[in-house]
Protein backbone atom coordinates (compact mmCIF):
# COMPACT_ATOMS: atom_id res chain seq x y z
CA UNK A 1 0.00 0.00 0.00
CA UNK A 2 1.17 3.48 -0.80
CA UNK A 3 -0.63 6.69 0.10
CA UNK A 4 1.15 8.48 -2.72
CA UNK A 5 -0.96 6.50 -5.13
CA UNK A 6 -4.08 8.19 -6.42
CA UNK A 7 -7.41 7.02 -5.01
CA UNK A 8 -8.22 4.85 -8.01
CA UNK A 9 -4.92 2.98 -7.85
CA UNK A 10 -4.95 2.80 -4.07
CA UNK A 11 -8.39 1.21 -4.08
CA UNK A 12 -7.65 -0.88 -7.17
CA UNK A 13 -10.00 0.55 -9.77
CA UNK A 14 -9.24 1.81 -13.28
CA UNK A 15 -8.81 5.60 -13.55
CA UNK A 16 -12.10 6.44 -15.20
CA UNK A 17 -15.32 8.38 -14.63
CA UNK A 18 -17.31 5.19 -15.03
CA UNK A 19 -16.92 3.16 -11.90
CA UNK A 20 -18.74 0.16 -10.64
CA UNK A 21 -20.17 1.24 -7.27
CA UNK A 22 -20.50 -2.32 -6.00
CA UNK A 23 -16.88 -3.02 -6.91
CA UNK A 24 -15.89 0.15 -5.08
CA UNK A 25 -17.81 -1.04 -2.01
CA UNK A 26 -16.24 -4.53 -2.20
CA UNK A 27 -12.70 -3.23 -2.62
CA UNK A 28 -13.03 -0.73 0.20
CA UNK A 29 -14.44 -3.39 2.53
CA UNK A 30 -11.49 -5.66 1.76
CA UNK A 31 -9.02 -2.87 2.43
CA UNK A 32 -10.79 -1.92 5.63
CA UNK A 33 -10.43 -5.49 6.86
CA UNK A 34 -6.74 -5.54 6.07
CA UNK A 35 -6.29 -2.25 7.86
CA UNK A 36 -8.40 -3.11 10.88
CA UNK A 37 -6.72 -1.92 14.11
CA UNK A 38 -7.05 -5.44 15.63
CA UNK A 39 -4.66 -6.73 13.00
CA UNK A 40 -2.15 -4.11 14.00
CA UNK A 41 -2.53 -4.43 17.75
CA UNK A 42 0.68 -6.47 18.05
CA UNK A 43 2.64 -4.61 15.44
CA UNK A 44 5.08 -1.78 15.94
CA UNK A 45 3.93 1.74 16.67
CA UNK A 46 5.21 2.84 13.29
CA UNK A 47 3.15 0.22 11.48
CA UNK A 48 0.09 1.16 13.50
CA UNK A 49 0.58 4.79 12.51
CA UNK A 50 0.90 3.79 8.86
CA UNK A 51 -2.33 1.81 9.08
CA UNK A 52 -4.14 4.85 10.42
CA UNK A 53 -2.82 6.90 7.51
CA UNK A 54 -3.87 4.25 5.00
CA UNK A 55 -7.32 4.17 6.53
CA UNK A 56 -7.66 7.95 6.25
CA UNK A 57 -6.53 7.82 2.61
CA UNK A 58 -9.01 5.03 1.97
CA UNK A 59 -11.93 6.88 3.55
CA UNK A 60 -11.18 10.05 1.62
CA UNK A 61 -10.78 8.02 -1.55
CA UNK A 62 -14.10 6.23 -1.14
CA UNK A 63 -15.94 9.49 -0.45
CA UNK A 64 -14.32 11.08 -3.52
CA UNK A 65 -14.99 8.22 -5.92
CA UNK A 66 -18.54 7.64 -4.73
CA UNK A 67 -19.79 11.11 -5.68
CA UNK A 68 -19.98 11.85 -9.42
CA UNK A 69 -19.07 15.52 -8.89
CA UNK A 70 -16.12 14.83 -6.57
CA UNK A 71 -14.94 12.05 -8.89
CA UNK A 72 -15.06 14.33 -11.93
CA UNK A 73 -13.23 17.09 -10.05
CA UNK A 74 -10.64 14.58 -8.88
CA UNK A 75 -10.04 13.22 -12.40
CA UNK A 76 -9.34 16.77 -13.60
CA UNK A 77 -7.22 17.48 -10.55
CA UNK A 78 -5.05 14.49 -11.50
CA UNK A 79 -4.51 16.26 -14.82
CA UNK A 80 -3.55 19.45 -13.03
CA UNK A 81 -6.85 21.27 -13.55
CA UNK A 82 -8.54 23.26 -10.80
CA UNK A 83 -12.28 23.57 -11.40
CA UNK A 84 -12.65 25.95 -8.47
CA UNK A 85 -10.92 28.88 -10.12
CA UNK A 86 -13.04 31.99 -9.74
CA UNK A 87 -13.04 33.04 -13.37
CA UNK A 88 -16.58 33.64 -14.55
CA UNK A 89 -15.69 34.73 -18.06
CA UNK A 90 -15.58 31.21 -19.43
CA UNK A 91 -19.15 30.28 -18.51
CA UNK A 92 -21.67 30.32 -21.27
CA UNK A 93 -24.26 33.10 -20.60
CA UNK A 94 -27.12 30.91 -21.81
CA UNK A 95 -26.27 28.38 -19.13
CA UNK A 96 -26.19 31.12 -16.49
CA UNK A 97 -29.53 32.43 -17.70
CA UNK A 98 -30.98 28.95 -17.24
CA UNK A 99 -29.46 28.75 -13.75
CA UNK A 100 -31.05 32.08 -12.90
CA UNK A 101 -34.45 30.84 -14.10
CA UNK A 102 -34.17 27.60 -12.14
CA UNK A 103 -33.37 29.59 -8.99
CA UNK A 104 -36.30 31.92 -9.63
CA UNK A 105 -38.49 28.87 -10.05
CA UNK A 106 -37.25 27.53 -6.71
CA UNK A 107 -37.88 30.87 -5.02
CA UNK A 108 -41.52 30.83 -6.13
CA UNK A 109 -42.25 27.28 -4.97
CA UNK A 110 -43.53 28.17 -1.46
CA UNK A 111 -46.29 30.30 -3.05
CA UNK A 112 -47.47 27.55 -5.41
CA UNK A 113 -50.81 25.79 -4.86
CA UNK A 114 -49.02 22.50 -4.49
CA UNK A 115 -45.46 23.31 -3.42
CA UNK A 116 -44.50 19.65 -3.06
CA UNK A 117 -45.47 18.86 -6.62
CA UNK A 118 -43.62 21.93 -7.86
CA UNK A 119 -40.59 20.84 -5.86
CA UNK A 120 -40.75 17.36 -7.37
CA UNK A 121 -40.94 18.82 -10.87
CA UNK A 122 -37.94 21.03 -10.26
CA UNK A 123 -35.96 18.18 -8.70
CA UNK A 124 -36.72 16.04 -11.74
CA UNK A 125 -35.58 18.77 -14.09
CA UNK A 126 -32.34 19.37 -12.19
CA UNK A 127 -31.60 15.63 -11.97
CA UNK A 128 -32.04 15.37 -15.71
CA UNK A 129 -29.66 18.27 -16.34
CA UNK A 130 -27.07 16.74 -14.00
CA UNK A 131 -27.39 13.39 -15.72
CA UNK A 132 -26.78 14.97 -19.11
CA UNK A 133 -23.74 16.84 -17.81
CA UNK A 134 -22.28 13.66 -16.30
CA UNK A 135 -22.70 11.81 -19.58
CA UNK A 136 -21.13 14.70 -21.45
CA UNK A 137 -18.25 14.83 -18.99
CA UNK A 138 -17.62 11.08 -19.28
CA UNK A 139 -17.35 11.36 -23.05
CA UNK A 140 -15.21 14.50 -23.02
CA UNK A 141 -12.88 13.07 -20.41
CA UNK A 142 -12.53 9.87 -22.38
CA UNK A 143 -11.74 11.90 -25.51
CA UNK A 144 -9.25 13.91 -23.43
CA UNK A 145 -11.06 17.12 -24.39
CA UNK A 146 -10.10 18.58 -21.03
CA UNK A 147 -11.28 22.09 -21.73
CA UNK A 148 -14.82 20.90 -22.45
CA UNK A 149 -14.67 18.47 -19.53
CA UNK A 150 -13.66 21.30 -17.18
CA UNK A 151 -16.56 23.39 -18.41
CA UNK A 152 -18.93 20.49 -17.77
CA UNK A 153 -17.67 20.13 -14.19
CA UNK A 154 -18.06 23.87 -13.56
CA UNK A 155 -21.66 23.57 -14.70
CA UNK A 156 -22.18 20.59 -12.40
CA UNK A 157 -20.96 22.74 -9.51
CA UNK A 158 -23.75 25.27 -10.17
CA UNK A 159 -26.35 22.52 -10.32
CA UNK A 160 -25.08 20.76 -7.18
CA UNK A 161 -25.42 24.07 -5.36
CA UNK A 162 -28.99 24.25 -6.58
CA UNK A 163 -29.62 20.72 -5.30
CA UNK A 164 -28.48 21.87 -1.85
CA UNK A 165 -30.90 24.81 -2.04
CA UNK A 166 -33.72 22.50 -3.13
CA UNK A 167 -33.05 20.19 -0.17
CA UNK A 168 -33.01 23.17 2.16
CA UNK A 169 -36.45 24.26 0.94
CA UNK A 170 -37.71 20.69 1.21
CA UNK A 171 -36.68 20.61 4.87
CA UNK A 172 -38.40 23.93 5.45
CA UNK A 173 -41.63 22.79 3.82
CA UNK A 174 -41.56 19.53 5.78
CA UNK A 175 -40.87 21.31 9.04
Amino acid sequence: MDINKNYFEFIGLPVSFHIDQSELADRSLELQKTLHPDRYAHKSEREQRMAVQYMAHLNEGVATLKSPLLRAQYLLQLQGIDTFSESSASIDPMFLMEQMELREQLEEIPEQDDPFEALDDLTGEVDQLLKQLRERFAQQYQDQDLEAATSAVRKMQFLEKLVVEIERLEDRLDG
Partner: protein
Amino acid sequence: MAYSDKVIDHYENPRNVGKMNDKDSNVGTGMVGAPACGDVMRLQIKVSDEGIIEDAKFKTYGCGSAIASSSLVTEWVKGMSLDEAAELKNTSIAEELALPPVKIHCSVLAEDAIKAAVADYKEKQDK
Protein backbone atom coordinates in the same frame (compact mmCIF):
# COMPACT_ATOMS: atom_id res chain seq x y z
CA MET B 1 -17.63 34.90 9.89
CA ALA B 2 -18.81 38.39 10.76
CA TYR B 3 -20.23 40.57 8.04
CA SER B 4 -19.63 44.30 8.15
CA ASP B 5 -22.57 46.63 8.90
CA LYS B 6 -22.61 47.77 5.30
CA VAL B 7 -22.89 44.22 3.98
CA ILE B 8 -25.72 43.50 6.41
CA ASP B 9 -27.49 46.71 5.39
CA HIS B 10 -27.34 45.83 1.67
CA TYR B 11 -28.25 42.23 2.40
CA GLU B 12 -31.31 43.17 4.47
CA ASN B 13 -32.35 46.10 2.29
CA PRO B 14 -31.00 45.32 -1.15
CA ARG B 15 -31.25 48.28 -3.53
CA ASN B 16 -32.60 47.97 -7.04
CA VAL B 17 -33.57 44.32 -7.07
CA GLY B 18 -35.45 43.48 -10.22
CA LYS B 19 -35.43 42.79 -13.87
CA MET B 20 -35.46 44.85 -17.04
CA ASN B 21 -36.46 43.60 -20.45
CA ASP B 22 -33.20 42.32 -21.89
CA LYS B 23 -34.62 42.67 -25.41
CA ASP B 24 -34.81 46.48 -25.10
CA SER B 25 -32.11 48.16 -27.15
CA ASN B 26 -31.25 50.61 -24.35
CA VAL B 27 -30.77 47.82 -21.78
CA GLY B 28 -27.49 46.01 -21.22
CA THR B 29 -27.47 42.70 -19.33
CA GLY B 30 -24.52 41.11 -17.57
CA MET B 31 -24.82 37.49 -16.48
CA VAL B 32 -21.98 36.08 -14.43
CA GLY B 33 -21.42 33.18 -12.09
CA ALA B 34 -18.79 31.80 -9.73
CA PRO B 35 -18.31 28.08 -10.31
CA ALA B 36 -16.60 27.55 -6.95
CA CYS B 37 -19.60 28.60 -4.88
CA GLY B 38 -22.38 28.32 -7.48
CA ASP B 39 -23.41 31.97 -7.12
CA VAL B 40 -25.21 33.55 -10.08
CA MET B 41 -25.62 37.27 -10.65
CA ARG B 42 -27.59 39.28 -13.19
CA LEU B 43 -26.89 42.99 -13.46
CA GLN B 44 -28.74 45.23 -15.89
CA ILE B 45 -28.33 48.85 -16.90
CA LYS B 46 -30.62 51.22 -18.76
CA VAL B 47 -28.68 53.73 -20.81
CA SER B 48 -29.81 57.16 -22.05
CA ASP B 49 -29.18 58.41 -25.60
CA GLU B 50 -26.33 60.47 -24.14
CA GLY B 51 -24.65 57.29 -22.90
CA ILE B 52 -25.44 57.84 -19.23
CA ILE B 53 -26.67 55.01 -17.03
CA GLU B 54 -30.15 56.04 -15.92
CA ASP B 55 -31.15 52.98 -14.00
CA ALA B 56 -29.69 49.70 -12.80
CA LYS B 57 -31.22 46.48 -11.50
CA PHE B 58 -29.79 43.27 -10.18
CA LYS B 59 -30.72 39.82 -9.00
CA THR B 60 -28.19 37.67 -7.20
CA TYR B 61 -28.47 34.14 -5.87
CA GLY B 62 -25.56 33.78 -3.54
CA CYS B 63 -24.07 34.72 -0.21
CA GLY B 64 -24.56 38.02 1.62
CA SER B 65 -21.34 39.48 0.24
CA ALA B 66 -22.33 38.71 -3.35
CA ILE B 67 -25.74 40.30 -2.83
CA ALA B 68 -24.22 43.35 -1.14
CA SER B 69 -21.56 43.76 -3.86
CA SER B 70 -24.12 43.76 -6.66
CA SER B 71 -26.55 45.97 -4.73
CA LEU B 72 -23.79 48.51 -4.13
CA VAL B 73 -22.76 48.48 -7.79
CA THR B 74 -26.31 49.28 -8.95
CA GLU B 75 -26.28 52.28 -6.61
CA TRP B 76 -22.89 53.48 -7.78
CA VAL B 77 -23.35 53.22 -11.52
CA LYS B 78 -26.52 55.30 -11.73
CA GLY B 79 -25.52 58.59 -13.32
CA MET B 80 -22.18 57.25 -14.57
CA SER B 81 -21.11 57.16 -18.19
CA LEU B 82 -20.53 53.73 -19.71
CA ASP B 83 -16.78 54.21 -19.62
CA GLU B 84 -16.84 55.21 -15.96
CA ALA B 85 -18.94 52.16 -15.10
CA ALA B 86 -16.65 49.83 -17.04
CA GLU B 87 -13.70 51.14 -15.05
CA LEU B 88 -15.23 50.30 -11.71
CA LYS B 89 -12.78 48.21 -9.71
CA ASN B 90 -13.58 45.33 -7.42
CA THR B 91 -11.10 46.76 -4.91
CA SER B 92 -13.31 49.82 -4.34
CA ILE B 93 -16.32 47.54 -3.78
CA ALA B 94 -14.38 45.33 -1.37
CA GLU B 95 -13.08 48.38 0.47
CA GLU B 96 -16.49 50.05 0.76
CA LEU B 97 -18.07 46.87 2.12
CA ALA B 98 -15.02 45.90 4.20
CA LEU B 99 -15.06 42.40 2.67
CA PRO B 100 -12.72 39.87 4.28
CA PRO B 101 -10.13 38.20 1.99
CA VAL B 102 -12.24 35.03 1.53
CA LYS B 103 -15.08 37.16 0.13
CA ILE B 104 -13.06 39.27 -2.29
CA HIS B 105 -14.22 37.03 -5.14
CA CYS B 106 -17.78 38.34 -4.59
CA SER B 107 -16.62 41.86 -5.46
CA VAL B 108 -14.79 40.45 -8.50
CA LEU B 109 -18.07 38.88 -9.58
CA ALA B 110 -19.85 42.26 -9.31
CA GLU B 111 -17.08 43.94 -11.32
CA ASP B 112 -17.37 41.23 -13.99
CA ALA B 113 -21.15 41.73 -14.02
CA ILE B 114 -21.08 45.49 -14.67
CA LYS B 115 -18.37 45.02 -17.34
CA ALA B 116 -20.52 42.34 -19.00
CA ALA B 117 -23.59 44.60 -18.88
CA VAL B 118 -21.69 47.48 -20.52
CA ALA B 119 -20.27 45.12 -23.16
CA ASP B 120 -23.73 43.70 -23.86
CA TYR B 121 -25.17 47.21 -24.30
CA LYS B 122 -22.34 48.26 -26.63
CA GLU B 123 -22.72 45.12 -28.70
CA LYS B 124 -26.43 45.85 -29.12
CA GLN B 125 -25.68 49.39 -30.34
CA ASP B 126 -23.21 48.12 -32.94
CA LYS B 127 -25.81 45.92 -34.56
